[in-house]
């Protein structure tokens, strides 16, 4: 066995072989570069939780000056696209067919009941299936109604004020653009895919084809084989990450408040976890079909659903919250959204990075142990 120089040469050979495989198989390139591009474009332009121009059916049972005034307010709001319908039957039909998301109904006695105690009801019927949109619609209509009341009172020279008025400020994302947190969250999903899915398949392929045994009989050490796999995909993953960050900041105007270098550093740690997970999966599964299935199960959907990217972890039941701690995406989502929107908040970054580092050590260590055991 040659010394240090030999090790470096062997490693270089392995890395070169892996790079050639990547370049010659378009599917890895697709995952590393085309997918981030496509996903970010789709997500960035397509995904939005900001509701505007909600189609609502408007039923005015007895038009009067007051109802016309209210309808004017509703039409003026950028949140609603009212569609006047002749009666409740037509409105219900439109709601069932999905042409409108809600019905706003001013009853025949609207003008009369305005002068009575209790007030006239502005009736809102929402399609509760999409509960989130339904809530937003209710909030917006409440805003329209309150503004209308205040304006009318002012016109009559009265003042009408609710006893308590809520003033809210949204920190870190003052225009409340959902894109600002969806795009950084997407960076996490993409890096998880590149890291875990690709490496899981690649190692399993060597086992399945028997080329792993061929590698073992060469003078290459186990650590070198693993490093030879890690390095190329690490480079690929960092490339995908840089592309995503560039698109996020330049194309989608997501502010990067925190430090770029900190983002790069934490991404590197996260990538090690993802790669370690991929290697571990393949060393356990060995068949590509199984490795691929396990990688999908443990990466894509958890990164999407259990990471706090879309669904707030705090709203989940305690048991599920504990489960989320097993997925690296959870820590990285906290880091990435904080770095992008809030800045270098050490109280978030340090503990989450430590958790990631620990996971990286565990995954890579276990892979190392397992691989050696199988070989002897």
């Amino acid at each position, binding site marked *: 066995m040659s010394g240090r120089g030999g090790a470096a040469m062997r490693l270089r050979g392995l890395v070169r072989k892996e790079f050639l495989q990547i370049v010659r198989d378009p599917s890895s390139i697709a995952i590393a570069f085309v997918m981030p591009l496509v996903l970010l474009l789709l997500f960035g332009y397509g995904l939005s939780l900001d509701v505007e121009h909600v189609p609502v059916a408007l039923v005015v049972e007895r038009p009067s000056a007051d109802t016309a005034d209210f309808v004017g307010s509703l039409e003026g709001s950028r949140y609603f696209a009212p569609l006047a319908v002749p009666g409740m039957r037509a409105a219900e039909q439109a709601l069932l067919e999905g042409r409108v998301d809600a019905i706003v109904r001013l009853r025949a006695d609207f003008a009369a009941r305005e002068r009575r105690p*209790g007030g*006239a009801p502005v*009736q809102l019927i929402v399609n509760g299936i999409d509960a*989130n949109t339904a809530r937003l619609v209710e*909030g917006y209509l409440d805003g329209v*109604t309150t503004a209308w*009341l205040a304006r009318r009172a002012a016109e009559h020279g009265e003042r009408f004020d609710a006893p308590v008025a809520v003033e809210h400020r*949204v920190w870190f994302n003052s225009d409340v653009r959902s894109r600002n947190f969806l795009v950084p969250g997407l960076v996490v999903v993409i890096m998880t895919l590149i890291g875990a899915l690709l490496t899981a398949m690649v190692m399993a392929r060597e086992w399945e084809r028997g080329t792993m045994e061929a590698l073992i009989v060469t003078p290459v050490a186990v650590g070198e084989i693993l490093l030879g796999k890690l390095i190329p995909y690490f480079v690929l993953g960092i490339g995908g990450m840089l592309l995503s960050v560039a698109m996020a900041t330049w194309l989608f105007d997501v502010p990067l408040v925190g430090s770029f270098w900190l983002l790069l550093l934490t991404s590197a740690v996260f990538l090690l976890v993802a790669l370690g997970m991929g290697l571990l999966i393949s060393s356990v599964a060995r068949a590509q079909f199984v490795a691929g299935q396990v990688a999908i199960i443990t990466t894509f959907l958890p990164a999407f659903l259990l990471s706090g990217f879309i669904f707030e972890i705090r709203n989940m039941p305690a048991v599920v919250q504990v489960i989320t701690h097993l997925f690296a995406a959870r820590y990285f989502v906290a880091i990435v959204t904080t770095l992008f929107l809030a800045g270098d908040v050490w109280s978030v970054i340090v503990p989450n990075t430590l958790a990631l580092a620990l996971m990286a050590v565990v995954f890579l260590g276990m892979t190392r142990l397992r691989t050696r055991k199988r070989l002897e």
Partner: protein
Amino acid sequence: MWIRILALVIKEFITLLKEPKSRAVLIVPPLVQLLVFGYAATYDLKQAPYALYNEDPGPGGRRLAAMLRGSSSFSEAATVSSIDEVAPLVDARRVLLLIHIDARFTRDLLAGKPARLQVIVDGRNSNTALIAVGYVRNVVGRFNREWSGERGLPAPPAVLETRAWFNPNLESRWFFLPGIIGILTLLVTMVITAMSVAREREQGTFDQLLVTPMRPVELLLGKALPGFIIGFLEATAITLIAVLWFRIPLLGSLATLYAGLALFLLSAVGIGLMISSLSVTQQQGLLGAFLFMVPAVILSGFATPIANMPAAVQLLTLLDPLRYFLVILRKLFLEGAPAASLVHQLWPMAVIGLASMALAGWLFRHRMA
């Protein structure tokens, strides 16, 4: 002809199920995922931690604070006594909200001037932020009504009355669970079919199949049926869990549900086979399935409404079979929609399914590695 197809189907099942590991990854994970994701996928605020900064010495502030404390949506995680203490709490994500009742609160209330309640919310997830503000507004609205009622203050001439159809408590889980059924069914079916032809190509056995007396149609059916059958069983199990465990109401007819499922599976299997016959290795097959599946989930309207997407992207969603199936699932489960109203969701899936199957069959012959 049917005997040959049957033989191929049996062979496919043996490949899929002979290994314990491969058997396990097919059956267990979708069920576990449904349980975990079923609980995870919710926008409803539960015990959201907030910091209270109450400068008001009077009873008004105390009363409002008590109402907040009584709401199950919030939990008081900290009380602060100066505005400087707030930023570190919010930054570190220890609290989602700060509720600030200023020193003049009770005085203003009693004087009939609008009393101000300041809310600062962590916008790192802007959706959660808006929901939280909405919840605070609800609590304040209740406070206002009680206060005005007790003091005989003039009530506003118009009030908003909301009713939610099909989901009276606006539980977002009812919205997401049918969606998860669709996603998991897609996942299982796609992975099986996307790997099936690719595996044979990689091992070189597909060329052998091509020289057998089997016609392309028979090959296609033989490759399509296993994914279809497994997807069918898996979807049934998942639906049972959703109904029996999560207690999601299933108001519509089972026949319509299964008609929708059959067409959805047809399109999923078709696309899976198409990807599979394009790939030469299993890795390409799986990654290809992924390249289809990730956008398919995102564009389906699962987490964010299709109506919020720009027009060009909305057009793209028309190619996504999951989009139609999600509408069917949600409408059947919660609205109990009649079959006739779902026709416009059913036929596009049939078209996608037949077109992709035809293309896959053509690719069998014309793409030789």
